[in-house]
C-alpha cells in the first residue's frame, strides 16, 4: 500500500512548512474552505472513518452532533486528543514529531466543519519534543495565514492552542482531558451530558484523536470512495497505523490498510520473533487494556474493530504487544496491573480500591504467597469493577486481568503451588 499517513516520515525537513507545502500540504484546507461545513461532515461520514483513539466511533456522526448555530457567547470547540499514553501505543508521537503540519491541517479542516474558531491540542507532557515541534509548526502556519484571523481570506478565523499535560494517563479519557484542559485535576465526568452538548468550559466540544484528524486532509483531497476502498469492508475503512512492540525483530510503527492480518504484522513487518527458535506465545492486540490472546487464537486473525471484537479482544489503539514462549505471563499481568493501579485517578471506589487490590494479589502470587482461592478472588474483584465506575479505566484494568487468568491459568496455579514460574515461562521475560 502507498504510504498515506506516513508519507512524509523520513523526508528531510518533514516538520517544516516548506517541505509540507511542496508535497501538497494545505491544498486540502483550501479545498475544504470552498465547501460548507455540512458538506464536510457528510464527506467524512461517507468515508466510514472511525475514531483511531480506541473506541472506533464513526467520526462524521460524532461531528454531526455539534450545534450549527454557535455564538461568541456559546462557541463550539475542537480538541485534539494527543495524550497518547496506553502502553504499547506510540503512533501519534510519530505523526506529531514527523509531520506536525498534517495534524494542524486536519485540525483546521475539522474545526471549520464543526464551526469552531478555537481548537486545543492536548499533548501528553512527556512528549516535550513533540510539543516543541507542534509549536514551531503552529508559528509557521500562523505566519502563512492558515491559522488566526480570516484564514486564507475565507472570513473564518481559527486559533489553535497547544496544551501540555503533565503525566496522567487518565487525561486520555475525553472527559478527564476536558477537566485537565480547564486547569483541574483529570477527573472523568459522568456522561451524559456528552461533550457535544456540554464540553470544555461547558461549551459544545468534539474530541478527536491525532491519527483520526490526520486522515481528514486525505479524505478531503482524494474523496470518500478512495478512503473506503482501503480496508476489508464498509465498517473498517482507511489506512491504519499499527504499533508493534515486544519480542519481535523489528518493532515500530507500520502503516497498512485497516484489517491487516496479524501474522503479516508480526512476521512480515516485524520480521518474526526476536529470539530465534522461540514460538509465539501471546499477543496483546490493541494496547495493554485489551484482552490478551493466546497464539492459537491469533491464527487467521485480522487487525480491525470487528474481527478483534469477535475474537474476544479489541483493536483499541492498535498497540500490538508480542510475547514469545519464554514469557512469564504472571509477571506481565502484574506489570499491567501495576500500571492501572498507578494511573487510577481515585475518584470512584471500585477503581481506586480494585486496581490496587488486583495488583497486590498478583504480586503476592509472584512472591510465592499465592493461595488457591486467589484466582477466584481476582475474577471477583474484576467483575466488581466492570461497568461500575464513571470512566472505563476500571474496565481497562479488569479486562486484561480476567483474560490473563483465564488464558494462562496453569501458570498462575503453578506459581500458587510452587512459588515459582512454570519452567517453560522462566527463561527470561526481558529480552
Amino acid at each position, binding site marked *: 500500500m502507498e504510504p498515506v499517513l506516513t508519507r512524509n516520515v523520513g523526508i528531510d525537513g518533514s516538520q517544516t512548512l516548506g517541505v509540507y507545502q511542496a508535497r501538497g500540504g494545505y491544498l486540502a484546507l483550501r479545498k475544504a474552505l470552498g465547501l460548507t461545513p455540512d458538506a464536510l461532515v457528510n464527506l467524512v461520514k461517507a468515508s466510514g472513518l472511525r475514531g483511531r483513539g480506541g473506541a472506533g466511533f464513526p467520526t462524521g456522526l460524532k461531528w454531526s452532533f455539534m450545534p450549527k448555530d454557535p455564538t461568541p457567547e456559546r462557541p463550539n470547540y475542537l480538541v485534539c486528543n494527543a495524550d497518547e499514553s496506553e502502553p504499547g501505543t506510540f503512533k501519534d508521537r510519530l505523526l506529531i514529531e514527523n509531520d506536525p503540519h498534517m495534524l494542524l491541517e486536519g485540525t483546521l479542516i475539522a474545526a471549520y466543519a464543526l464551526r469552531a474558531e478555537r481548537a486545543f491540542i492536548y499533548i501528553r507532557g512527556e512528549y516535550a519534543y513533540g510539543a516543541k515541534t507542534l509549536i514551531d509548526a503552529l508559528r509557521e502556519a500562523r505566519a502563512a495565514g492558515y491559522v488566526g484571523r480570516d484564514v486564507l481570506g475565507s472570513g473564518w478565523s481559527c486559533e489553535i492552542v497547544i496544551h501540555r499535560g503533565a503525566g496522567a494517563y487518565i487525561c486520555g479519557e475525553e472527559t478527564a482531558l476536558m477537566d485537565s484542559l480547564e486547569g483541574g485535576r483529570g477527573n472523568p465526568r459522568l456522561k451524559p451530558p456528552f461533550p457535544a452538548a456540554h464540553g470544555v468550559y461547558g461549551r459544545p466540544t468534539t474530541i478527536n484523536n491525532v491519527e483520526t484528524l490526520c486522515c481528514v486532509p486525505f479524505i478531503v483531497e482524494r474523496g470518500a470512495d478512495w478512503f473506503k476502498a482501503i480496508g476489508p469492508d464498509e465498517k473498517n475503512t482507511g489506512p491504519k497505523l499499527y504499533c508493534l512492540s515486544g519480542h519481535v525483530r523489528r518493532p515500530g510503527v507500520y502503516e497498512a490498510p485497516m484489517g491487516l492480518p496479524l501474522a503479516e504484522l508480526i512476521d512480515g513487518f516485524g520480521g518474526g520473533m526476536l529470539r530465534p527458535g522461540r514460538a509465539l506465545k501471546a499477543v496483546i492486540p490493541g494496547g495493554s487494556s485489551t484482552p490478551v490472546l493466546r497464539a492459537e487464537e491469533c491464527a487467521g486473525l485480522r487487525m480491525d474493530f470487528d474481527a478483534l471484537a469477535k475474537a474476544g479482544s479489541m483493536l483499541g489503539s492498535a498497540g500490538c504487544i508480542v510475547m514469545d514462549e519464554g514469557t512469564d505471563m504472571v509477571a506481565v499481568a502484574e506489570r499491567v496491573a501495576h500500571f492501572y493501579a498507578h494511573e487510577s485517578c481515585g475518584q470512584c471506589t471500585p477503581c481506586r480500591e480494585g486496581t490496587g487490590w488486583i495488583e497486590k494479589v498478583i504480586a503476592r502470587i509472584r512472591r510465592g504467597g499465592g493461595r488457591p482461592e486467589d484466582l477466584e478472588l481476582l475474577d471477583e474483584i474484576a467483575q466488581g469493577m466492570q461497568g461500575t465506575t464513571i470512566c472505563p479505566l476500571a474496565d481497562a484494568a479488569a479486562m486484561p486481568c480476567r483474560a490473563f487468568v483465564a488464558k494462562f491459568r496453569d501458570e498462575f496455579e503453578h506459581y500458587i503451588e510452587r512459588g515459582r514460574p512454570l519452567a517453560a515461562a522462566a527463561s527470561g521475560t*526481558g529480552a
Partner: protein
Amino acid sequence: MSAEDRRAGNEARPETFGPEFARRADEIVARYPQPRGALMPLLHLAQDERGYVSLDAERWIAERLGLTPAYVHGVTSFYTMYRTAPAGRHLLQLCTTVSCMLRGCDRVREHIEEKLGIEAGETTADGLFTLVCVECLGSCGTGPVLQVDDDFYEDMDLERVDALLDALRRGERPVPGAGPRRAIVE
C-alpha cells in the same frame, strides 16, 4: 524531603518571579477562554524556571489566576510530572511498563542503580542524577527508553547507558533518539 523541610526551604528561599515571568504568564493566560485554563502551563513554566514547583510558586500562580493555593496544590500533586522538591541536575526517568519490560528494562535499571550507587527514587550524592521509574513513555517500539530531562534516549542497553551517563558526567549532551538498531517506521 518532608513537608516540614519543604516549608523551611521555602522560607529560607522565598520565590518571587520577576517581570519577565509575569509577561510570559500573561501571554499564556490570554490563550485561554478562562484564566484557570492556564494553570497547567503556568506550573510547567514555574518548574522550568526553578526546577520544581515550590509552595511560593503555587501561591504566585493562585493569585494570578484567582484561585486558592490549596486548589493549585491539589492540581500540582495530581500530576506526576510536577515536582514539589528539587531533583538532581539530570532527571533520569526509566520506563518500566510492559513493552520496555519485555525488552529488558529491568537489567537497564539494575545497571544504572549499580553504576550510580543509588536506587530508583534517589539522587546521587553529588546531586548530578536523580533516577525514577515511570509509566509508559510512548516509546514502546524503541524500548527500553530512558528520558533524560526532556530528551528520550531509546533502545537502551548496558553499553548505551554507560556511554550516555559518562557523557553527561563530562557535561556533554549526546544526540537523543533511537539507537542504530532500526528506524521507528519502515
